[in-house]
């Protein structure tokens, strides 16, 4: 399909504002009379609150009010369950335990909010927090997933008999019989640990209850303003029309800012109503490590069954998933893990047993990748081990098991995060793998370059890893497109934006329909006053779902324009074309009218709008996919390790993506760059270190190592392939999380390849220079 705007490298509409500091972020909101909130957070991971002494704090000048859970009276109530367990899956056990606005009686994880202080300034509020004395009785702490499930483990929630948060079993075919037919069975156990999302901007909320207009305005760093508006209205006993949630520009979301109903999100609007004054709270970095969600800890016991010629007959995966102290977000992450643990491979027999576990750690909700990197790590590791046992080339083994192009739509028969059957819409995997192989020079590296470099004493390794990413899931999004008399086009959609380039990619979709310059399309996203239907920005669904809704609305406006222009220009619709903000008769370009003039004609001041028609050139439409769109890609890297420091240098980094129709290659590449940097962090630097008493020992950016330019490859070479999704008219698939998903698997493979003399077997992620050193020492000692 040839496009005029879609697929073009168009610079982003939003960048001039962002780069010159003219974009509004939550912390920029400053309202006269605004009060500031600070929280006293628990030092203990698990403790009973015996008493709270706020007297000294109350007397500090500038302190307006202090609230504990008890002070909230009947308004104290835990957050709503956000995503229930899938009703489509039989026999699911799910124990719902949700976070409270303030801890009552007991704290369940370090950093849980216990007391809220309202003061004239943040400085005063922080000082008053220091004046408060809480007497805790410490309780035994549950940190380790396996120990948490032992019968004598302390209980996170003592009203439950165990620390089981959820249990679900999913299967396809019959793993046991596959096992019997197998020539080779490999069993491994993997430990995957937790990392933080570390958005550049921490969370923040300004809530403004205007008593006179009986209206609440909330500026919130949320990825899902509409669910937050609806939930807040319900909690406060207001109508949805009385609440406006604005998610302005955000400095990154990455999942934890999705619809969470964080304690602060529940509390700030409540406080604002209580005091009839605007309230502000901006999270600091240390709070962010505890009070914002994080992810990725799982323990997998895996078995893979293969024939001797390398065909995978079946896979069995029994895993524990850390949900932290509460499980408001349901089973999204482990469902993703279950969908991705068989990757892009045609595996007919699957048994996947998931046990979600409560621990005294901060709450777990999706972080870019959301369970997918774990699944990808497990299957790719298993295939690496299988290739070794079978004496096969890593890539040949994978190619043998890829789902063939004629098998789509392909039903994995596993329920996915949208509670639908995981039906893979489309794909043509082999050419993508071959392209990556060619770009990195796989064969040449293995045969010539690596032996030469190894002979020079260099530790160089190659990794190449295919992966899938489920994207673009429902339920739906909507958009409204309107042409103004100025000829400019307004677009409103409900999803929030956190840096994905929506202002440009959605504009390109509109331009394609209406022939206006991309810079003449003005998007408003994430403001419930502008558009109040929708779910949010997560699960790599913005381009697919909201993008398709924008397309539908723009198409509807296009037909309104054609109808009116046909009348005005006295030419049949088929003979009209859109060009540069005008509609003209194709054969007689001089016979034209601008979109602005048409918009004015469509909204007359005299005369009558004909019955059955609507004023204006405006339309609203929605898109709700029954199934998501599954993207595919391959990452490949060549790394060199300094054997003294264990620091890594990326010699080459290649990604080949197939995300269907590319809306804007510049934006796509930016997404991949960011994703890869997060993936490298997940593979080798970023790990939240909890000690056995549930204390996070690296809750600062001095100790928690995020990837900087220094740790990045000098260049990421990106190749594109395009298999259009048949499930949406744009033919597009999401790519927001793709960059991060396969990196730990690919990196681990490359490390083992570099240290092939050591017989290194890596069963964990993330690693670190230090941890790699330990593993290598262990190998040496064992030899």
């Amino acid at each position, binding site marked *: 399909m040839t496009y005029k705007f879609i697929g073009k490298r168009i610079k982003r509409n939003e960048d001039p504002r962002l780069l010159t500091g003219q974009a509004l972020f939550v912390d920029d909101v400053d309202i006269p009379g605004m009060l500031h909130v600070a929280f006293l957070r628990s030092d203990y991971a698990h403790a009973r609150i015996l008493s709270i002494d706020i007297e000294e704090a109350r007397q500090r000048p500038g302190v307006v009010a202090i609230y504990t859970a008890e002070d909230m009276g009947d308004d104290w109530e835990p957050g709503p369950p956000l995503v229930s367990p899938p009703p489509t899956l039989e026999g699911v056990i799910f124990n719902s335990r949700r976070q409270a606005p303030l801890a009552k009686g007991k704290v369940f994880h*370090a950093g849980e909010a216990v007391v809220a202080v309202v003061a004239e300034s943040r400085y005063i509020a922080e000082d008053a927090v220091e004046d408060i*004395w809480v007497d805790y009785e410490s309780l035994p702490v549950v940190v380790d997933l396996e120990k948490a499930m032992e019968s004598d483990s302390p209980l996170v929630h003592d009203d439950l008999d165990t620390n089981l948060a959820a249990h679900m079993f999913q299967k396809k075919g019959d793993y046991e019989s596959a096992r019997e037919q197998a020539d080779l069975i490999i069993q491994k156990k993997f430990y995957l640990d937790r990392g933080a999302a570390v958005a550049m901007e921490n969370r923040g909320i300004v809530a403004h209850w205007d008593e006179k207009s009986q209206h609440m305005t909330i500026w919130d760093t949320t990825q899902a303003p509409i669910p937050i508006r609806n939930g807040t209205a319900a909690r406060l006993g207001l109508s949805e029309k009385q609440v406006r949630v604005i998610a302005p520009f955000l400095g990154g979301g990455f999942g934890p800012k999705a619809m969470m109903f964080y304690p602060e999100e529940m509390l700030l609007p409540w406080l604002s109503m209580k005091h009839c004054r605007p309230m502000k709270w901006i999270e600091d970095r240390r709070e962010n490590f505890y009070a914002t969600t994080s992810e990725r800890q799982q323990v997998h016991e895996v078995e893979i069954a293969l024939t001797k010629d390398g065909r995978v007959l079946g896979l069995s995966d029994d895993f524990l998933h850390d949900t932290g102290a509460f499980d408001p977000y349901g089973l999204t992450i482990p469902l993703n893990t279950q969908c991705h643990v068989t990757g892009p491979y045609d595996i007919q027999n699957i048994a996947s047993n998931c046990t979600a576990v409560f621990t005294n750690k901060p709450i777990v909700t999706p972080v870019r990748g959301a369970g997918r990197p774990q699944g990808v790590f497990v299957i790719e590791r298993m295939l690496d081990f299988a290739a070794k046992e079978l004496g096969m080339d890593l890539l040949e083994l994978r190619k043998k098991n890829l789902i063939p192009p004629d098998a789509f739509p392909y039903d994995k028969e596993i329920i996915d995060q949208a509670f639908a059957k995981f039906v893979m819409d489309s794909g043509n995997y082999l050419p993508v793998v071959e392209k990556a192989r060619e770009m990195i020079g796989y064969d040449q590296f293995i045969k010539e370059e690596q032996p030469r470099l190894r002979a020079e004493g260099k530790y160089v390794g190659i990794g190449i890893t295919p992966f899938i990413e489920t994207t673009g899931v429902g339920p739906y999004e909507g958009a409204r497109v309107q042409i103004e008399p100025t000829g400019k086009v307004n677009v409103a959609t409900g999803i929030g934006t956190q840096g994905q380039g929506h202002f440009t990619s959605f504009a390109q979709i509109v331009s394609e329909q209406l022939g206006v310059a991309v810079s003449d399309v003005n998007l408003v996203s994430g403001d419930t006053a502008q558009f109040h239907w929708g779910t949010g920005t997560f699960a790599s669904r913005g381009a697919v779902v909201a993008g398709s809704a924008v397309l539908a609305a723009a198409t509807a406006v296009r037909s309104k324009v054609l109808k009116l222009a046909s009348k005005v220009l006295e030419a049949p619709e088929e003979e009209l074309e859109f060009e540069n903000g005008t509609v003209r008769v194709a054969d007689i370009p001089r016979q034209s009218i601008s979109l602005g003039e048409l918009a004015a004609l469509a909204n007359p001041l005299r005369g009558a709008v004909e019955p059955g028609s609507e004023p204006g050139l405006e339309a609203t439409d929605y898109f709700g996919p029954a199934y998501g769109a599954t993207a595919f890609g391959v990452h490949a890297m060549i790394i060199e390790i300094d054997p003294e420091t264990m620091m890594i240098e990326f010699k080459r980094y290649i990604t080949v993506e197939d995300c269907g129709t590319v809306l804007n290659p510049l934006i796509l590449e930016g997404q991949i760059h960011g994703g890869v940097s997060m993936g490298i962090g997940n593979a080798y630097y970023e790990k939240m270190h909890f000690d056995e*008493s549930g*204390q996070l020992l690296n809750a600062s950016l001095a100790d928690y190592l995020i990837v900087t330019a220094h740790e990045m490859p000098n260049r990421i070479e990106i190749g594109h392939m395009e298999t259009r999704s048949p499930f949406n008219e744009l033919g597009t698939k999401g790519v927001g999380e793709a960059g991060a998903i396969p990196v730990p698997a690919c990196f681990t493979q490359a490390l083992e390849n570099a240290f092939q003399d050591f017989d290194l077997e890596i069963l964990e992620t993330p690693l670190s220079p230090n941890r790699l050193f330990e593993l290598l020492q262990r190998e040496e000692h064992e030899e």
Partner: protein
Amino acid sequence: MKLEGEFTFSGPRERVWDIIRDPDILATALPGTKKLDLVGENEYEGEMQVRIGPVAGTFGGKLIVSNEVAPESLTLTVEGKGKVGFLKGSGDIVLSDQGEDATLMKYSGEVQIGGRVASVGQRLFDTVSKSMIKQGLDKLNEAL
């Protein structure tokens, strides 16, 4: 976190024992100690000002002496909390003669920290605690 070490006092074992069992002397020796009062048999209550890197604050708490075998060994249990976090630990101290006029102290124990001292200060906690112990023991040695 584990704390382990040894220290040689230049004095006889009985004398060393008397000093470490004297709260007034202990209070002067432990760096940052604001007060240390005997509140029951083998139980002290005190306050200590601690600075670990960017984290500074006062800890209040209890110190309990148990398993006492004079003048040889004892177990110390501490529990303290403050606005910057909490600290809990216990350790064994063993004294042995080291020739005529010297005494060797071996100590080993485990300390658990929480709150801001853990999340921001842990990287420095090891060094700071070792240097505090060293300072304290040097002071006690001077008191001999």
